[in-house]
């Protein structure tokens, strides 16, 4: 197996163009597991670990732009105020050791339906910056997940960054796992309110072949929510929960049953909505 170690981003793009079969490796917390289990035997690894630029984040044009190699540990320590739901999701990823290495770009690269960043990226309307020697392409995250562990990258493309709109209202993330830590989501849910545009964003994890949104629930809530008082009736909250559950297409597997996932999504949707609309929660 060849090991390509480009020193900068340009070299990385060139290497990827020259070796489209090379598998990028960033934190390695997914790639190394796959290699150990012999799930794949790629001709080459393309190490992104030396590329400084990928590890930075910045704020520009109403977005937080996270380099692909920003770790979950960094998101927790540096971005909890700007990206509260993403930081909540980051806290649920693996263990401290994993969070020190695991990156947002790697999470997207794997594109697992259980990737914990995904529901938040969906709910907040994030955009993936993909780049190749041919140029830069922006992919709305809703178009990025194309199937079970499949994403929209072309063989010569790498993820440069992900752009997340600056918080425009309350947002929440919740993840059910059957252990108190270090657990893959049985299902997860994210919701974000945009108080200016008066829109609702949602994201559902581990309850379908890919991360999902709940458009009917979003539309319903946008109409049912009292945006000025940021309040919602009990009935409307329950209906929102039911619509979120209906948007999922879960299966029975070792982690949980389909019926449980639907039930848990409804519960999480109602609870997270309450947290966003209760007065003290808004202040957070």
């Amino acid at each position, binding site marked *: 197996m060849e090991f390509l170690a480009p020193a900068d981003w340009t070299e990385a793009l060139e290497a990827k163009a020259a070796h489209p079969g090379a598998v990028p490796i960033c934190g390695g917390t997914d790639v190394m597991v796959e290699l150990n289990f012999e799930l794949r035997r790629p001709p080459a690894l393309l190490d992104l670990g030396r590329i400084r630029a990928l590890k930075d984040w910045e704020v520009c044009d109403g977005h937080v732009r996270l380099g692909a190699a920003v770790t979950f540990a960094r998101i927790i320590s540096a971005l909890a105020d700007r990206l509260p739901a993403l930081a909540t999701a980051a806290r649920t990823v693996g263990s401290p050791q994993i969070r020190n290495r695991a990156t947002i770009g790697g999470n997207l690269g794997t594109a697992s339906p259980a990737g914990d960043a995904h529901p938040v990226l969906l709910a907040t309307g994030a955009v993936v910056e993909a780049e190749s020697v041919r140029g830069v392409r922006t992919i709305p995250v809703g178009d990025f997940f194309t199937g079970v562990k499949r994403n929209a990258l072309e063989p010569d493309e790498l993820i440069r960054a992900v752009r997340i709109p600056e918080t425009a209202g309350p947002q929440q993330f919740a993840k*059910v796992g059957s252990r*108190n*830590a270090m657990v893959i989501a049985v299902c997860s849910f994210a919701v974000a309110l945009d108080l200016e545009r008066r829109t609702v964003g949602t994201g559902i994890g581990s309850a379908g072949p890919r991360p999902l949104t709940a458009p009917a629930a979003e539309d319903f809530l946008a109409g049912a929510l009292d945006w000025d008082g940021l309040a919602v009736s009990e009935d409307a909250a329950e209906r929102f929960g039911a619509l979120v559950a209906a948007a999922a297409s879960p299966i029975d597997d070792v982690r949980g049953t389909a019926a449980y996932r639907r039930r848990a999504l409804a*519960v*999480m949707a109602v609870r997270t909505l309450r947290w966003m609309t209760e007065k003290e929660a808004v202040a957070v």
Partner: protein
Amino acid sequence: MTIQASAAGIGDSPTRPDGTPKVLGAFGYASDLTVPGMLHGATLRSPHPRALIKSIDVGPALAIPGVRAVLTAEDIPGTKYYGLIAQDCPVLALGEVRYHGEPVAIVAADDVAAARRAVAAIVVDYEVLTPVTDLRAALFDPDSPKVHAGGNVVRHQPVRRGRADDPDIRALADVVVTREYQVGMQDQAFLGPEAGLAVPAADGGVDLHVATQWLHADAEQIAPCLGLAPELVRMTLAGVGGAFGGREDLSMQIHAAMLALRTGLPVRMTYNRRESFFGHVHRHPAVMRYTHGARRDGTLVFVTAEILLDGGAYASTTEAVVGNAASLGVGPYEVEHLAIDAYGAYTNNPPCGAMRGFGAVQTCFAYESQMDALAAELGMHPLDIRARNAVKQGSVTPTGQVIDAPAPVAEMFAQLRAMPLPPDRAAGDLLPGGYGNTTHGEGVRRGVGYGVGIKNICYSEGFDDFSTARVTLSAADGEPAVTVHTAAAEVGQGLVTVQGQIARTELGVERVAVAQADTTVGSAGSSSASRQSYMTGGAVKAACEAVRERVFSLARERGFQVAEGSRLAGGKIVSASGEPLVDLALVLGADVVEETREYRHRPTGPLDRMTGQGSSHVQFAFAAHRAVVDVDVELGLVRVVRLDVVQDVGRIMNRQSLEGQIQGGTAQGLGLAVLEEIVVADGKVRNPSFTDYLIPTILDMPPMGMRILEYPDPAAPYGLRGAGEPPTLSSTPAIAAAVRDATGLALGRVPIRPEHIAVPAQNAARDG
């Protein structure tokens, strides 16, 4: 001047020699063994739970560069089968596979990658058959296919006492509770996967360095399969990364030895995590149906129980597990009228055998749940109904055995009750769901539950159970030094340390070395059944006593006065009152005193085949837990808030090791209560990885309060009582009871999964 008892003797907690290296990552485990020129072994395993093997083509594997040998059942040099009790397990599949993961062929190659590639290149033509996976059908449906020619019943052990079936007796009960319970398949989940090194020897034999629980039983099973004389299979214990029963059965031992003998080169085999889930037996899943009748005051009138245990494809220790389930199946309670039927089955599910608690865990969940159900019916406190029926010294067990040692069960309840409950939930406490942010307090209810268990210590049912110790005393540089040599397996429980403590106490010598366990000394028996402190501890004590007698004679021969009642302490012979008489070094000179002793516990008898009557156990041990849980009743998520435990150990040999055992056993019971299960569907293992086989993390394990009682057992060395297993029994039912208390659900199955709580239709419990 009087000489004090030696420091780091029994009752102290000296630092264990393996502790620091393990924490630093420097400890040498079996998987770290290397010798120059060694080959790497790998195993081809069956993807099917039941299939006929039409043909095996090893040609493509042999063609891979670096591959030195590819062996199948045809290449087994000697006996084709092995087993701890019945020899029914083929070394490599013989014409048929009976479980998902059964070894079919083995490979040795220059490196791991080549070995694995070769495994993938072997072509096996299977005729897939419908597996036998339903436990009840396997046992009782006459039309069920037979997993082995002799039928699917490994053992049926009835226990009968009084007249449990007599309507007049049953009429004495004011309440009768019938429920069915299920226990999922738990794994030992030891962290060091199966590994070992086989080195071919010039004499045609083989030297094996393996992580195992019982060197001599391994050697006795290995030699016939290799077609070697017993003395040609020599074994040394390699670094063991946990065992919990999972290393009682052979894994890679014969395979590595076959490859080493074939190639003439050392061969190491190391399973990876996934393979480890297929490489050892698990805890028997159980289906149990219990009926308890009690008077209004809570006194038990009668108990009937049907206990079905799934032994999977091969017998392993199922026979003995059934014996425990049957004889301990009503728990630490006095019951006049009872009828128990315990069955162990063959199926095409993964083989099950020894795991911490050994047949006493499954029934403990059932009988403790029954005691709670009775308490609820009668409006009694769970501890009151337990105390009313608790066994004590002099009680008769269901098999007619008199408990002749202290059994302070009622006192344990009183102590448990006296321990403070944790405060109510406060802001900042971790909630159910942990860091998942699933609740800010909504839906969270607290529950409290209790559990107590009874476990036999040492081997039962007439087994000739013994251990051997060799103790050597000499003087070097004017200072006495002791070496203790046994074949007892240190599996992490602290056995090496306690052997040293005993030698220091008995011989009054500071410098004690414990030699590497191997088969150049006699058998120590297994590191299981909570028996090593008792058995190997007893053997070390006996050998030390023999050494001491020799030293006294030597002293007298050399003209020193050794009064009656003299002892050894502080490197000297001292009088009964502690006055120093003479330095050991002076007595010994250049002489070496060496004594080897075998230690046997008192004999036990069999269980009658029809009535189950018999004094089959050596010693009984008890632990009781109180669990406090917070449950998110809408999401079905559980956080165990507190686990308090009371255990009687007869005598504390090493408090730190003991507390570690109690904590670890409790954690394993917590795992079974709410997390740990090997999910098997149609005979196939669905979660052979720590991604989905979830063991408790530090955030799942709550703080523990602990009270340790010391009521000595006069029959045991130092009065000690085996301690490793009992806490594993009682923490599971305590937690299940606490979850029931919080949810109001019946919850007849462990592990309790979120859907059992949150989706009532998926609640696995069934009322009778």
